[in-house]
């Protein structure tokens, strides 16, 4: 019986404007889908040392066995490419509806190759690809571009696009999909370098399931778990369901771990006014779901703009409440909503741009930069919105900042790198490494730069483990990374695993595809992918010296009540990093030993200096 994977992808050559069907080879199938497919394909097909913005880079967009099915919380699609922001291999995700539609096109994904000379929109109808001129939408914001496509080419297309930042190859530009975001790592710049303004999918194929009866039973069981969680008052996902992802603001503030004023403070006195609960109570609010998701953590709000107008936007999400809120001393919910909307218009990762702006504001405060006609001050709406636009347009100081916080610090100098809150040029997520030691280790060792998706955040923020301790954190981080990489082969929403017993993953895979995999093998697959990514990054020139947090984390105690003047001990931290490498079967420099690669079955990818 047919399973839920179509075993075929479309290769789209942007240079020649042609496409071909590529049948998935047998040796790819054990990588399940999603991030597994993307990582293996990119590792096999590109030289890690290439310039990420050259036509040699490829974009591997995939779905997984549960995409487009009734299994709850599997709306996301995955893109793997080389990141122009971090120089690493990148995996980036967006929810919404495009993932399911890709599956309904009767494919497991598409691979973009080469680069177009003219700006194009890609239309994918089942397995047929049409290149059309993007002239009518050039310069438009993402939501505007996608609305144009729907109104002019077909309301039933599910879309993704870049904004002006992507067109101008801003390194932190994101790829948007119907207001959901492939945020991290600069995918918008990669699309911009290939001159692909947008892609639209429309499928008629639906999806099969290897065992409909068993799949329906598993779905019902999983739905019950998710719904029960949503009904619990103090369940985190339940809070997301009621107030959006911004529901967690109170918790992180109470733990003195809300990065504030470019990560100088761990609390923000206006955190209540930019929380999910505040928006729910004071603004027009509609709950919005991703495809098939019972949690509906998405929020549409209407709000006022700084120039007195009225508009609406999706979000802000929790991470943005930090990056464009507390980190910038911005406690005005309307200004925050407008800044968030501008990231959607320009098409920019709200995390990295927030950190880049907070970095710039501190540089200005220290007299390292200035900008004609624009005051640069924390908490000033003009400064925040103005810098955001300048980065989106690569205008004035924005041209330097558009390179990302680490690269910008190299140009600005004056020791500014010490307070550029990034790892591998990717801005910090909301969590503070000085307050959450394991989360800091996850930021530093992430294969895609300061990433919170594979960090022991829940355990640390809830006090299940001592957040300031170094003990046992290397083990926790390794486990988190391997487990999350495994579930990202299914492209499960990160919140799915908070509630779902892991035994359900192999059961879902079998019912969907017929593939038998044990839970241990599933975890090992996650570890295999992690190692393959690490090998890519080593070959791209990144080593132990890049697995490091900015100096502020080791030199400056966190200020503010409740943050206990926490600071990391550099030597103790390095010991923890070595412990982590050892656990992984890597040497002091983070190079995987041959035996480890043999054990994982990826010896052919070995890195030797």
């Amino acid at each position, binding site marked *: 019986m047919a399973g839920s994977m179509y075993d075929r992808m479309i290769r789209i050559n942007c240079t020649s404007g042609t496409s071909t069907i590529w049948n998935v080879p047998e040796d790819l199938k054990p990588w399940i889908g999603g991030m597994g497919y993307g990582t293996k394909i990119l590792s096999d097909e590109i030289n890690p040392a290439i310039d990420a913005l050259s036509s040699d880079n490829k974009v591997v967009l995939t779905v997984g066995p549960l995409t487009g099915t009734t299994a709850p919380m599997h709306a996301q699609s995955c893109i793997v490419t080389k990141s122009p922001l971090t120089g690493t291999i990148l995996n980036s995700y967006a929810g919404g509806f495009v993932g399911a539609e890709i599956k*309904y096109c009767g494919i497991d994904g598409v691979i973009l190759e080469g680069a177009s000379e003219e700006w194009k929109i890609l239309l994918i109808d089942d397995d047929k690809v049409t290149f059309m001129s993007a002239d009518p939408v050039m310069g438009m914001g993402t939501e505007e571009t996608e609305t144009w496509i729907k109104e002019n080419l077909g309301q039933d297309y599910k879309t993704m696009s870049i904004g002006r930042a992507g067109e101008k190859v801003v390194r932190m530009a994101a790829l948007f999909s119907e207001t959901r975001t492939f945020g991290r790592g600069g995918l918008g710049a990669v699309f911009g370098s290939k001159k692909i303004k947008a892609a639209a999918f429309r499928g*008629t194929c639906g999806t099969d399931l290897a065992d409909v009866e068993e799949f329906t039973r598993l779905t019902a069981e999983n739905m019950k778990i998710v719904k029960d969680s949503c009904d619990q008052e103090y369940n985190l996902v339940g809070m997301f369901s009621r107030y959006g992802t911004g529901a967690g603001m109170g918790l992180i503030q109470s733990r003195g771990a809300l990065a504030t004023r470019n990560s100088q403070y761990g609390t923000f006195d206006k955190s209540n006014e930019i929380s999910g609960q505040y928006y729910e109570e004071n603004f027009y609010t509609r709950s919005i779901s991703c495809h098939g998701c019972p949690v509906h953590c998405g929020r549409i709000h209407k709000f006022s703009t700084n120039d007195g107008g009225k508009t609406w936007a999706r979000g802000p999400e929790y991470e943005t409440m930090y990056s464009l809120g507390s980190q910038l001393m911005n406690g005005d919910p309307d200004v925050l909503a407008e800044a968030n909307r501008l990231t959607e218009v320009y098409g920019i990762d709200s995390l990295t741009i927030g950190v880049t702006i907070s970095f710039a504001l501190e540089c200005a405060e220290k007299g390292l930069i200035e900008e004609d006609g624009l005051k640069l001050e924390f908490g000033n709406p003009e400064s925040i919105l103005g810098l955001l636009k300048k980065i989106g347009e690569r205008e004035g100081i924005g041209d330097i900042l558009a390179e990302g916080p680490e690269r910008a610090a190299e140009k600005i100098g004056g020791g500014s790198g010490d307070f550029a809150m990034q790892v591998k040029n990717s801005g910090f997520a909301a969590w503070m490494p000085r307050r959450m030691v394991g989360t800091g280790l996850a930021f530093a060792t992430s294969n895609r730069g300061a990433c919170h998706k594979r960090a022991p955040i829940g355990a640390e923020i809830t006090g299940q483990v001592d957040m300031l301790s170094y003990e046992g954190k290397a083990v926790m981080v390794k486990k988190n990374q391997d487990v999350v990489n495994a579930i990202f082969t299914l492209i499960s929403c990160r919140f799915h695993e908070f509630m779902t017993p892991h035994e359900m993953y192999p059961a879902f895979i079998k019912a969907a595809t017929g593939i038998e995999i044990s839970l241990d093998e599933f975890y090992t697959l996650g570890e295999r992918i992690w190692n393959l990514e690490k090998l890519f990054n080593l070959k791209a020139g990144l080593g132990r010296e890049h697995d490091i947090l900015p100096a502020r984390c080791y030199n400056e105690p966190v200020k503010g009540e409740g943050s206990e003047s926490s600071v990391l001990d550099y030597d103790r931290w390095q010991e923890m990093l070595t412990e982590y490498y050892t656990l992984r079967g890597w040497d002091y420099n983070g190079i995987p030993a041959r035996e480890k690669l043999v054990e994982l079955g990826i010896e052919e990818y070995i890195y030797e200096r």
Partner: protein
Amino acid sequence: MQFRVDPEKCTECGRCTMACSLAKTGRIQPQESRISIVRCWPEVPEIKVCRFEDCPEHPCIEACPFDAIIIVDGKVMISDELCRGCKLCVPACPYKAITMNNKKAVKCDLCGGKPACVAECVTSALTYSGVK
């Protein structure tokens, strides 16, 4: 028992469309669903599905030249046997609830009394219950 639709409660997840197509075709293929959701951001969506008793005029019945649309146990239904595929009912429906499938007009038939969509709707935007 009455089928009720409340767009205010809808979060647009589309579980109803998957459940419907699975019930009607044995496969997940939402374009074959007899219920569909049209996004109208930032406002509430349009839900295209038959309203049964909430549409008392039943203009589809009058539009059908072949008397293929009938009331069965108080519920408006399309007879697959009598339908000739003329499509005249499609524009007649104020809720855009009728679509064509294999040259026949189709719409929600409440799955014989246990609507698959209602079971999947977590926010009670769709309900099916006794109403006096």
